[in-house]
């Protein structure tokens, strides 16, 4: 058994990537928490999230992310745009 980081249900936070959400447990957790009974080894989906590049990539682009940390999904605060200054 590994820890949350290695689980298919783990969704790292977009900004603070040592934190994240579990699709099976409510709340925010740390990625190094010991795995629980719902642990399943993460596997590559058609689309994955690369933590090193901070992009979602397609399986066909796997070669561009060799050696990187990938996850099945990422977590983004849905209200983030409300309080983010941007410009155009």
């Amino acid at each position, binding site marked *: 058994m590994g820890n949350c980081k290695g689980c298919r249900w783990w969704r790292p*936070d*977009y*900004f*603070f990537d*040592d*934190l994240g*959400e579990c699709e099976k447990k*409510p*709340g*925010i*957790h*740390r990625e190094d928490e010991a795995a629980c009974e719902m642990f399943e080894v993460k596997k590559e989906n058609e689309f994955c999230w690369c933590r*090193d*590049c*901070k*992009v979602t990539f397609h399986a066909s682009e796997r070669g561009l992310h060799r050696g990187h940390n990938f996850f099945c999904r990422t977590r*983004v*605060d*849905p*209200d*983030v*745009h409300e*309080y*983010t*200054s*941007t*410009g*155009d």
Partner: protein
Amino acid sequence: MVKMDLNLIIGGPQGGGIETAGLLAVKALAMDGLEVFADREYHSNIKGKHSYSHIRASDKRVRSIKYPVDFVAALDVESIATHYKDLKPGGVLIHDSALLDKSLLKLPPMEKKKAERLKAELDANRAGATVKELDEWLQRNGKVVLQYPFSKTILEKVKLDSQLIERAMNTALTTVLLRAAGMPLTKILEAVDSLFIDKAEARDLNRAVAGAVSDGFDELSGTKKLDIKILGQDRPPRGKRMLVAGNDAVAIGKLIGGLRLQTYYPITPAADESFVIEQHAKLLDSEGRAVGSPIVIQAEDEISAICMAIGGALTGVRSATCTSGPGFSLMVEGIGWAGMNEVPVVVTCYQRGGPSTGLPTRHSQSDLLFAINSGHGEFSRIVLASGSHEEAVDDAVKCMNLAERYQVPVIHLLDKGIANCVTTVDPPVFGAVERGKRAEKGTGEYLRFAFGDDPVSPRAYLGEELMWYTGDEHDELGHITEDPDTRRRMYEKRMAKREKILKEAPDGDKAVLYGDEGFEDLLVTWGVSTGAAIDALPELRSRGSRVAVLQVRMVEPFPADYISKFVSEANNVIGLEANYIGQLAELVGCNTGFRIRSRILKYTGRLITQDEVVNAYMRIKGGEERVVLTGGE
């Protein structure tokens, strides 16, 4: 009483709550009785790129930021990598201990060129490639590093909804930063309450977070012997202060000045001004009853925005629009129409990095010559450039008064530095609203553009009298004409306003001198750069220089005689502004014949800082003629 000058940087990923972190610190410092000036630097993308607030607090007035800094508080690795070199000897770096094993060289949001620069710096300093190695290097080089388990503490001690982590980490970081600088928790909590005054849930969460990390800080600081008591001093009470960004300041000024119609098309860094007017303004009658609010219209583009404002002005309501460079480009035809038809409309223009969309969220002072020359043909206009937030309030009122007194378009020229920087100011004084020369009713045929001794004709509003407006040349009624004599007289009537404006303008509207009158050297500047120059004066004097600062405020019509008096008295005149050419220096040369050879310039999109002024001035004294500043990330 300790004289203090605290500089701190709070950095993190854009969208990660970094703006709230900065605001909380600014509020806490201001509520602690300090004067504050805070620069907000952010990218034009939605999320992920490095953003930061550089906050300066002092027990005397501050108008600029200054490097090196006392504290760097970092939410992410990029902030550590970007700002570690900004720390002064003994300065404190604060970050989450969870970041220790992270690489400094694998930072996806970081731009490639910046990453290359960073790697070269780290290699040259042998500072390592991970956060842990850099921390050790900093400590070997006289800095203090505070590694705090922010995320661990929050998760263990605060019951946190999964949606709120970004909104908790920022408060945690700011709390530890302020505690490290000596501020007691009670004052931080007061600032939290004030910041989230209308958001009970967020307030409670942030109070809990601040309390939790503060407890942890007490345990940690005991072992680390971190005992920096910059804040938390007893200070004499200050009068009532306001904490405003430049956008807020202009909005307040426009409301005090009787604004009734504001039009805009959203653009950085101008749009916030309209939002403030829309969200916070209520019109009360003489008995204090709410009777509505000024009309704020988001137009379909800037061409419509200026045309709507012109239409509003013709009906007699005080009308204005606001924009920045790209939008101002679109407004030029409308400004010319307003010039031809002597329409009292105010355009607030916040300069940002150009050309084209350029650097949407970055500072620049490169639209001065554009503002005074915008539009084809010749017509009278006023361009007034504010140099501080307090001036921005007063000038917003003044611009509307001037527009109606002289019946000309008025451009209120500001910059991103003023628009987005947050600072403490005195509450505004409510000045007089001047509506200008009005037509008397029932005196026969109304001539909207009547010739007379005064180039300003009595004005009637649409609906009061019969009148005609056209973009073509016109006679006194407003009818189209190509008669050469009428053309000459009407042209001269419009242009004669320039002399009238200059003759009647008080000296303080033309330019302001800071420093001793017996100066040898004169820094000639404008806009927000004025603050850095004024703040630099004491240090320049302490180095034996007899130097003063001349802030030029009215740039069109240009007060050549008044400016000549100052520049001709100085042994050395040095231009200081945030553009490539030295646009104000060129303008002084064109109008006075006095060539300003020495120029301190910056066009990176970042503010000119106090320390940069001092260093550049010394380089000019050492014989350099053109100093280009490059500081800031």
